[in-house]
């Protein structure tokens, strides 16, 4: 799961009544031990704090899985996990 608002651009700020600008992750890159294995493209129709489940048949304990994302406002993030 990635913490991200995934704003559609169709929501109003309840206090100021202004539209909240669209803000969403459009690309997620997934790698296994440094090798790119999958890429994801998203729209603003993906739910807030996106959840992504994928399957890597060859992954074994001790392997590293990394994900890196980019959003429409030029922000990015990444994370690495070691398979236990």
């Amino acid at each position, binding site marked *: 799961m990635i913490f991200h608002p995934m704003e559609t651009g169709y929501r109003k700020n309840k206090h100021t009544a202004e539209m909240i600008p669209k803000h969403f992750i459009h690309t997620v890159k997934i790698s296994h031990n440094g090798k790119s294995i999958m890429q994801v493209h*998203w729209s603003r129709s993906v739910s807030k704090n996106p959840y992504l489940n994928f399957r890597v048949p060859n992954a074994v304990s001790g392997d590293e899985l990394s994900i890196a994302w980019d959003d429409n406002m030029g922000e990015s993030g990444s994370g690495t996990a070691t398979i236990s």
Partner: protein
Amino acid sequence: MNLSKKRRAFLNSALALISTLLIPVKGYARWDETAYNEVDIADSIRSIGIRNPGELRDASKNIELSLPEIAENGAIVPIKILSKIPKTERIFVFAEKNPQPLVSDYIFTSDVEPFVASRIKMGETAFVHVIVLADGIFYRTARQVKVTIGGCGEE
């Protein structure tokens, strides 16, 4: 005769080698903003490279699509897809009545299963279309989800 067979075998292995070499060079398609901004389902489907939606092959039996029949909250609709079509390269998801129907696009290599589970927003009751690209051919399946409270303008 023998020579020609040998030559063919050589050509085949040379072609196989070239196609293996091409995979890393080809890389991934980039996120295509234009496709994600299409507002009409037909234009949206065309935007991923399908000239004629009639060319889509029905694959309801070979694409396992899990979606709730009724989604009380359109902001969080769980979706799970498994393609059983050999050489699945990409899985596209469309929510027909969302302001922009193209929801997501998953690009696979042979190192991952052609499987994905995620959560999407749906503005209203609509068909969710899943299109699989496998070995250059497009396949589709679809299912309707009844949405109680739309999830595009609300939290």
